């Protein structure tokens, strides 16, 4: 992919023979593409880490014991109530205030003082708070009959969560999770404020050298729109696959497994 972009930009360079503004576009296109790749990394890594962190947070949040729900409550409130920019600055600039953190050795030089990891930490913390809140709502929205059915089968509490409640809740939050990832994509533009060369940072770098602010900003906007479209498409596919049972009524009857065909389905199929 990157080979292709570089070849394309080389071709454009020779084709235009230094004619502006195409020359500048060709020159900076590979850097913008590197930026797109960094942005994607930020979104995907923090999306996954945030998701993993969100599950225990949500489970603690729905607990009835005050000892358990107070921490996630404060956590969610803090990260949802303050701007992402403040959170990024707190991690990137704020941590250096403490002598003990600066003396952590490897952890400090390789991770906590690097803008890339700081951005990922801040985004993961932020998005996990939002996803935990989604999960909490979804766990409470799992139909009561399914939980009762599991109880009557004698399935242990742990297995109930593992095999019934959490997978079901995941299906419920999937559309909202897609929205959250897209919000994360837009939030990731803030990583450019801590000198990271994501799509936004690469764009600002190109503008600082060429003074063509409008063109490059619009180009970046177009790339962000494309990324959004790709993510929307991905989540739509994921939803069709994971929540396939909800779409059974949209299929034509002869595609449905004959064993599943009953009077109810035949009456309700569109």
């Amino acid at each position, binding site marked *: 992919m990157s080979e292709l972009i570089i070849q394309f930009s080389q071709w454009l360079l020779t084709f235009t023979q230094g004619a502006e503004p195409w020359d500048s576009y060709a020159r900076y296109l590979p850097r913008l593409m590197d930026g797109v790749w960094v942005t994607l990394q930020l979104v995907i890594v923090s999306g996954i880490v945030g998701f993993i962190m969100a599950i225990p947070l949500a489970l603690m949040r729905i607990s009835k014991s005050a000892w358990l729900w107070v921490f996630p409550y404060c956590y969610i*409130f*803090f990260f949802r*109530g*303050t*701007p*992402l*920019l*403040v*959170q990024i*600055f*707190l991690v990137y*600039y*704020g*941590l*250096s*205030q*403490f002598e003990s953190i600066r003396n952590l050795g490897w952890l400090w030089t390789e991770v906590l003082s690097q803008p890339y990891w700081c951005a990922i930490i801040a985004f993961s913390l932020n998005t996990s708070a939002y996803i935990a809140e989604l999960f909490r709502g979804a766990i409470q929205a799992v139909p009561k009959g399914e939980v009762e059915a599991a109880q009557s089968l004698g399935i242990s509490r742990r297995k109930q969560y593992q095999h019934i409640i959490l997978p079901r809740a995941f299906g419920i939050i999937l559309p909202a999770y897609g929205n959250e990832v897209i919000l994360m*994509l*837009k*939030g*990731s*533009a*803030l990583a*450019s*404020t801590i000198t990271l060369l994501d799509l*936004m940072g690469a764009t*600002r770098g190109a*503008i600082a050298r060429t003074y063509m*602010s*409008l063109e490059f*900003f*619009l180009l*970046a*906007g177009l790339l*962000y*729109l494309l990324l*959004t*479209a790709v993510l929307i498409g991905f989540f739509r596919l994921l939803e069709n696959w994971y929540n396939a049972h909800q779409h059974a009524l949209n299929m034509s009857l002869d595609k449905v497994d004959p064993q599943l065909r009953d009077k109810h389905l035949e009456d309700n199929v569109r």
Partner: protein
Amino acid sequence: MVIYFWLALGSPLNWHLPVCFFGLILGLLGAAAKLSPIRALRWIATTYTTLIRGIPELLLVLIIYFGTTEILLRLFDQYIEISAFAAGVTALSIAFGAYATEVFRSALQEIPKGQRESAMAMGLNRWQTFTRILMPQLWRIAIPGLGNLFLVLLKDTALVSVIGLDDLMRQAYVAAGFTKLPFTFYLAAAFIYLLLTIIFMQVIRFLEIRANRPWQGAR
């Protein structure tokens, strides 16, 4: 430090109120356009919401701030400086308007059709129907959605510090650079935003209760 932040407390509100005003107007116009019988208007409104909701707010702020001067430079061939305040308010209003359009559109669709038809039967014209029949009901349905948008906007006001405006974030940045205590000052800024969020949530709850007065007895 306490005095410093006491002064800073008001600065997000400086932004918030004009943006809310223009954003709500844009949102109402957008929703009206989306539901209008004229295809061109519908098309414009859909493009507007799709484009704006698909790009980061930061990018929009930068496009408005740097892009407008460049357009003016090309049109009139002279450099006209745009005040960062105007650029910030414009950009945030445009972003807020796009989200508000969707909220208002779904709220408008939720108002029973009979209301509009009976207004027509009473001989009200379109404008009167909108201001006297639809608007008061629209408000009630839209408030929960708008409330969320107000809170999002409160946090988005932090973005204008990127174009060098003297807002709460900027002051925290300056103070952190001066005292070499970044964590303290950014945390203080975070707590000011939290405090404002709590105040806003109370205001929204109050508005919601107020808008639902006619329904309170029934439930």
